[in-house]
């Protein structure tokens, strides 16, 4: 996993609540057996006017001019502003793979769906939960200010706006450590292989039928 420390990135506002992972990456793209290459199909049904299929070259597909990420001013955005319950629905990790591949490394919303939230961390993306008031403020400022960039610092756990307004965010020490150092969680867990084996022996003694 790639590490995340800090960015000063252009923000783009996606003003919809309950954005589900089917919208983030439609099902036809889930047929891939790879982890990469999903970025061009991010929000496919909203982003393009035609129907997308896996393997399609997206450079000449007709784009929906009304979709926020197609606006010239949001090209190159790295911070996605979103509304409540972002990433609800299916557990598909293809959703954060598409978000990361597109170029986002931070998402800020009042709430995220649980599975999507943890999937994001595994892919070097930082999902930040902020109060509805703060998110509302960021949406308004972002829409009003072309080139609106947010400074996101994981070490100090702060987000700072161009006007200097700053707010903190929570993250568990474990996730912070993994993200800052781009650590492979499996490698970390296997350092506790003896604990797992000891647990397994005890578990098997109590519920042997689980190991039939």
């Amino acid at each position, binding site marked *: 996993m790639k590490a995340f420390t800090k960015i000063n990135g252009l923000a783009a506002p996606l*003003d919809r609540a*309950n954005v589900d992972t089917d919208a983030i990456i439609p099902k036809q793209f889930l047929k891939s*057996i790879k982890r990469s290459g999903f970025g061009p199909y991010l929000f496919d049904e909203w982003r393009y006017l035609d129907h997308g299929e896996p393997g399609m070259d997206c450079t000449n597909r007709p784009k929906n001019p009304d979709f926020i990420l197609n606006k010239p001013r949001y090209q190159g955005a790295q911070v996605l502003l979103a509304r409540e319950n972002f990433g609800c629905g299916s*557990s598909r*990790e293809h959703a954060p793979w598409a978000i990361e591949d597109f170029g986002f490394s931070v998402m800020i919303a009042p709430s995220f769906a649980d599975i999507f939230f943890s999937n994001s961390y595994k892919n070097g993306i930082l999902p930040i939960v902020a109060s509805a008031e703060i998110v509302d403020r960021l949406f308004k400022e972002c829409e009003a200010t072309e080139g609106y960039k947010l400074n996101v610092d994981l070490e100090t756990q702060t987000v700072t706006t161009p006007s200097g307004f700053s707010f903190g965010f929570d993250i*568990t020490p474990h996730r912070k450590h993994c993200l800052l150092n781009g650590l492979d969680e499996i490698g970390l867990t296997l350092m506790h292989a003896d604990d797992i084996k000891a647990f397994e022996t005890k578990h098997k003694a109590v519920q042997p039928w689980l190991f039939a």
Partner: protein
Amino acid sequence: MAGKTLYDKLWDTHEVRREEDGTCLLYIDRHLVHEVTSPQAFEGLRIAGRKAWRSSSVVAVPDHNTPTNHWDRDIEDPISKTQVDTLDANIKEFGSLIYFPFKHKNQGIIHVIAPENGAILPGMTVVCGDSHTATHGAFAALAHGIGTSEVEHVLATQTLIQKKSKAMLVKVDGKLGLGVTAKDVALAIIGKIGTAGGTGYCIEFAGSVFRDLSMEGRMTVCNLAIEAGARAGIIGVDDKTIAYLKGRPNVPAGAAWDTAVGYWNTLHSDADAQFDKVVELNAADIEPQVTWGTSPEQVLAVGGRVPNPANEADATKRTGIENALKYMGLQADMAITDIKIDKVFIGSCTNSRIEDLRAASVVAKGKKIASNITLAIVVPGSGIVKRQAEEEGLDKIFIDAGFEWREPGCSMCLAMNADRLSPGERCASTSNRNFEGRQGPGGRTHLVSPAMAAAAAIAGHFVDVRIDTAATAEA
């Protein structure tokens, strides 16, 4: 000290270690695997030169991409076929307890085949790269969906890195009316607490309504916990749980059965357990439900009217209603029963078990689907469900009524195979998600119970199945 919740008991018996910040390693007993969310995980193991920690924990089946008709033609979409072939190869290389390849007589939806083959036991931790893993909470198992990185983590370490959620109790007491089913209860709960209402919680369902439900009905309710935002939904063990398990393959027998049952009977919340949140509904208030929008929380009783955005004060919610009405092609204030449909889908991990097919067949028996219905399909959840339904003659009832009787699979729930809606088509569906494009780009989904779907197929529009059921009962 307060007693323990069922969630506490399941968690505490699986915690391998705990960091200071509360991050835990949780041991995983059962790992369900399907073809869509696993190839990158197996590839990760291969690249790192890792083996599966305990392949006998794995139960696998291809279900999302598999066709539900013309099995003689194999899988025609080459990309789908590659994904299914990749699962075959990965299971062959890494091993499993149970694997039913495409066309195996017991093949079906992972969340249907696992319980019916005794692979889900009370007290287990169960994961799958699939959000509807919540289904298995019906057996007092801690079961939830995970992402592909976590699939790889579980394959390699038999554990999951987790923080404990909060505990919510959803209590529904009283008696359900005739024609009101587990699906309606679940949709009514989602309508009440919203699709984010359960975020951060494990929901325990308790009360007389859940005790009265069959194991199939309980699976339907737990399956939909994720649509309320909760990763897991659980129900305590009772005699029905034990009776369902007895004699199935992979379930302990003899003396081990007695010991296991003794333990399983402790798997319920203590009387003095404390929950972080309690939500109560009255069974008598629950009517057959129909979703009208593009989120499962956008749901109404069948007698209701589509909401008017003008009556919504909250701006984000108002925009949400406007977007949903536009996408769904509905007028504000129109009666649910005036909504005409084009297609009907009876199936999915939510509603494709034998009881679901029986409920739909009661409504369809001796009737014909309406002339405006272009396609009505019944997709059993597994080969076992299909054979049982055929033994009971349900296939004949559906075929006589004009339904197509298909082979098992996920099918039109998420339309990864050829079963899908065309743009603008409207479907009465027993599945779990009415998101934009879920059943095909531009498709419009209304979530209902199997009985309500069958009734809509016969009428050509939504109707109150209770009227239909009463007529059937008199006949």
